């Protein structure tokens, strides 16, 4: 990574206090000893973490530390990668996501995801948002649903006059907001964002970040980002992952998980401090 890190020693991340926060909020994901491997390669090992309702949790860390692997476990997207092995336990609202009777399609219905690269369907703007609800049987008041999703994604005013235009005619930032609209149109309970702004310019990025602040009233958000300033700006809680290399094994581990302000101003772990102050990564 070639970003220059100029994190000021004091970042004002409002209202967050780790203990008070985590204590009050309902736990959405309760993750125990999560180890994920692809074939013989271990991507992350022994992650223990709780994710809480209606706040934004950021996952930060250097490239290859397993951030994306982690977040893709939360809605079973990793099932699509052949050879993935998952050990440990992920409880979602108290029930095991990987229990034998659980249908991964239903999991993904309830836990939405937005990807690094905007991936709108080669359909009209309207159909991009309407397709999910239509296929999933939410056909009632479809126009209102589409409008609501586009409004929530702060895109409505820009596209309301050209809903029939192809989605690929939108700019990169608009496409990404369209993907967010598409994800929330099916009313998920959680929204996972895997580096949603990494391919966007600063203005589009800030639009997405504003949007996240709005969305957290209704949704539980988990965002993976390699951009530390972004984590500092949007997240309430931040988890720092790093790459552990010992003997001939290397895998991602969770180093520290705390209130965002604490992570960035007064981390407990030396590795976190080195990372957030730009000494490595």
């Amino acid at each position, binding site marked *: 990574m070639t970003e220059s890190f100029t994190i000021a020693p004091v970042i004002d991340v409002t209202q967050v206090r780790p203990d008070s926060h985590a204590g009050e909020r309902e736990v959405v994901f309760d993750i125990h000893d999560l180890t994920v491997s692809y074939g013989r390669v271990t991507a992350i090992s022994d992650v223990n973490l709780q994710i809480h309702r209606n706040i934004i949790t950021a996952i930060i860390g250097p490239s290859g530390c397993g951030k994306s692997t982690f977040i893709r476990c939360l809605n079973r*997207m990793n099932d*699509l990668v052949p050879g993935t092995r998952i050990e440990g336990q992920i409880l979602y609202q108290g029930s095991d996501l990987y229990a034998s009777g659980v249908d991964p399609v239903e*999991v993904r219905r309830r836990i939405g995801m937005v990807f690094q*690269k905007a991936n709108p369907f080669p359909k009209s703007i309207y159909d991009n948002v309407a397709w999910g609800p239509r296929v999933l049987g939410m056909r009632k008041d479809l126009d209102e649903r589409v409008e609501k999703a586009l409004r929530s994604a702060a895109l409505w005013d820009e596209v309301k006059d050209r809903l029939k235009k192809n989605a690929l005619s939108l700019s990169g930032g608009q496409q990404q907001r369209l993907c967010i609209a598409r*994800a929330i149109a099916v009313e998920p309970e959680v929204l996972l964002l895997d580096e949603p702004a990494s391919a966007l310019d600063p203005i589009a990025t800030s639009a997405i970040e504003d949007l996240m602040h709005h969305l957290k009233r209704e949704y539980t958000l988990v965002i993976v980002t390699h951009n530390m300033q972004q984590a500092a700006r949007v997240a309430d809680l931040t988890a720092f992952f790093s790459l552990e290399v010992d003997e001939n094994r290397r895998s991602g581990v969770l180093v520290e998980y705390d209130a965002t302000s604490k992570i960035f101003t007064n981390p407990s772990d030396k590795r976190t401090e080195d990372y957030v102050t730009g000494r490595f990564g």
Partner: protein
Amino acid sequence: MSRYRRRRLVNRAMEVLATVAALVAVGVLAVVVISVARRGAGAVSWGFFTKPQALFGQPGGGIANALVGTALLVLLATAMALPVGVLSAIYLTEFARRSVAVPIQVVIDVLAGLPTIVIGIFVYALLVVGHTQSGYAGAFALAVIMLPLIARATQEVLLLVPDTLREASLALGVRRWRTVIGVILPSSVGGILTGTVLAVARAAGETAPLLFTSSIFANTVQTDVTKALPNIPVLIFTYSEQPDPALHQQAWAAALVLMAFVLLASLAAKALLARSRRKLAR
């Protein structure tokens, strides 16, 4: 210095060789087209397309019955091969595990390489022996030829659909089959049509399987597919064996019509493919 010169010369020689090879390929096609056109163009007229074959020994006549028959045969064959070909391609790219997909792939490739006369004999033994020759049997034989072509072409265009689109759909909690119908097929329709058109062009000219399955027919326009259907390739074959030079000319003319059809079909396929590429381009 000498090494440098050698490399330069080798490079030059290979370039010339490759260019000559390309010219030879084009040249062969040009010779075929020109000689067929020269011998057959004289017989091509409006009546050639609208009149059925003349009765034996009588002058005139056209290829109307064979055109209709070939159209029917190919249509029927496409109706059989298209769904099976597309579905098997969908199975291989979207559903099958690697350990299952690889052997099936090999089988399809072998099918594509099977000599058409073998397919003809197979269908003859299966559907004609004990019954009669029929349009069904001919179309089935052509379908066997078309199937691997359509499956292959479909597979290739399905692989062009970016995985990010599959992920986008699956992440909405949409089932794989709905993803295929709603996202993957719409973005690959152009490519599938291209493959189908090329397979149609190929099937329209196949002779060997039809000799076994649909070669004993009346010289009238025939649309009953339970009977043998007159068709262009067999017409060319039988006319070329007749002593009458007028029939020879008609055979050449029919060959010219067939070639023109294949050429047009290839152009159409190219246009369709370009259109579908544009649609997927970001």
